[in-house]
């Protein structure tokens, strides 16, 4: 009789605790649900905050980095003397490897018509070092800029680049609008 009573008491404590925890969980879930979104978050570089420090190339958990240089063609000046393609003060006007900024030769240059050239990023070669972004922003229109390629990005819960970015340019954006491309993005800003 005595034993049965303790059993009942234990059972009562257990079920009331369980009930309380279901309520607490439901409360927490409901509260989170109230200002939740039916969308997911992905990481993206804000090109207007980016200071092309080069950490995107070194701090990504992937190797090579998921951050790639992307080219806003409608902002490009199609210059022959491209600040993003050629190193500043290059000795001879040739496109030989020693005169190119890109360490992996990921920028492809194609002649269109005199005196214009089209510059295309080969993303398979790009490591996201931002050397061309720095050159293009310093001497040109800033049409070369860094973006997270979402085909490659594994979308870590906390982005290692975001943590180390000195200008706080890597942020969470909605999965439905996953890019902050310079061409479209700057038009949206106005």
């Amino acid at each position, binding site marked *: 009789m005595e034993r049965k009573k303790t059993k009942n008491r234990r059972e009562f404590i257990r079920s009331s605790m369980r009930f309380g*925890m279901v309520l607490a969980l439901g409360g927490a879930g409901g509260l989170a649900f109230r200002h*939740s979104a*039916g969308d997911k978050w992905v990481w993206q570089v804000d090109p207007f905050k980016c200071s092309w420090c080069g950490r995107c190339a070194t701090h990504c958990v992937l190797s090579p980095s998921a951050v790639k240089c992307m080219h806003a063609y409608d902002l490009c000046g199609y210059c022959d003397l491209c600040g993003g393609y050629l190193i500043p003060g290059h000795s001879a006007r040739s496109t030989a490897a020693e005169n190119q900024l890109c360490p992996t030769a990921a920028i492809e240059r194609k002649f269109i018509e005199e005196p214009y050239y089209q510059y295309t990023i080969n993303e398979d070669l790009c490591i996201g070092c931002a050397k061309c972004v720095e050159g293009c922003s310093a001497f040109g229109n800033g049409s070369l800029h860094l973006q997270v390629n979402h085909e490659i990005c*594994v979308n*870590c819960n906390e982005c290692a680049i975001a943590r180390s970015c000195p200008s706080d340019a890597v942020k969470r954006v909605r999965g439905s609008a996953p890019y902050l491309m310079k061409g479209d993005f700057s038009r949206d800003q106005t």
Partner: protein
Amino acid sequence: MPFLLLLLIALSVDSTAQQRFPMPEFESGYQHPEVSAPEPRSLALEYIDVLVLLAFLSVTSWLVIRKRSRKWILGLVVAALLYFGFWRNGCICPIGSVQNMALSFSDPGYAVSYTVIAFFMLPLLFSLGFGRVFCGTACPLGAIQDLVIIRPVKVPARVSKSLGMFPFVYLALAVLYASTGTGFVICRYDPFIGIFRMGAEFHLIVLGIAFLLAGMFVARPYCRFVCPYGALLKVTSMFSKHHISITPSQCIECKLCSDSCPFGAIDRPVPERAISEMKGKTGHFMLYAAVIPLLMMAGGWALSSSHIFLSRAHPDVYLAHLLIDNPGVMDDTENLDVQTFLGSDRTMESLVHDAEAIQAAFLRGSWITGAFIGLVAGLFLVSQSIIRRRTGYHPNRGDCLSCGRCLKYCPVQK
């Protein structure tokens, strides 16, 4: 940087007309190519992940309570390791979702997604119903450790109980760091993520391999002594409605199962003699219970007095401290963080203002965190002074990971 501002102004005034080098009028009728911008993984696939988790939890619950088969559980362990581990790269997992929930409560700008809420809630709800079934199969971190258990040694109960307090401390600190916007420490120091992704920073790989090597002899060390989500599951599982039972009917106290558990999660029978020995010690219980508020105060005071130190993990606070304590660093052209700050339009006042706001949040948060740690320590003491009459061998509801190893050792037939 000044050029960038110029560009911004130029764009906002008159779209692209005032570019440094306007886009040429091509005579050849040249059309520029489209920029490839591949979409991220679709939302539908995220919901499939939730369904997979739900399926894992449901099937495991059925396996441990009705089917009682270690073989099937092992199959699910391998499946979880492949799906959530190597295929999904271990992200997002319920363990990390604790931080997303904490951030969503503190930061109104961060709306947590439905998937994350589901990943946080489902394992906890299932543990209230059926015990830690999530730890048993679905967790990829548990799965990889479960498969390397070769020769588990018995950790003395006192040692494992004391070490078992660390997950609560880790949980409290992780919530503090997440809710102050400092960072997600659980994800940062996830030892197995590097193995799942087949690549990570060197120290993470070393940590992962160290855990796996240790895990050959001390079974599932991360789950038992580190995992902060496991701390939550431990508490909810203690009050679960159903739970795996070693014997299908009545325990005959043959002791065969007692060595089968590599986690030391099987409670022995408690004889009457032990109860009567404890009878005279009710004072201990009262004493410990009375000490709890004191411990909470002490914990809160101890942690809050080190809130400055804790807050330095936040990049803004770190930078402000660096610049104030060591102004010479401004001349260091190698220091990227400092040079970027000096090059930006952010003033020292605004940085210090932001850093002070973060430190204030840390002061509040560290009182709560410290009090919570004190509470856990107090409850641990109280639990040491409680002894319950028990007949037969039973899995400890808090510690049992629902792996099902003990099932086949029981000679009792249904």
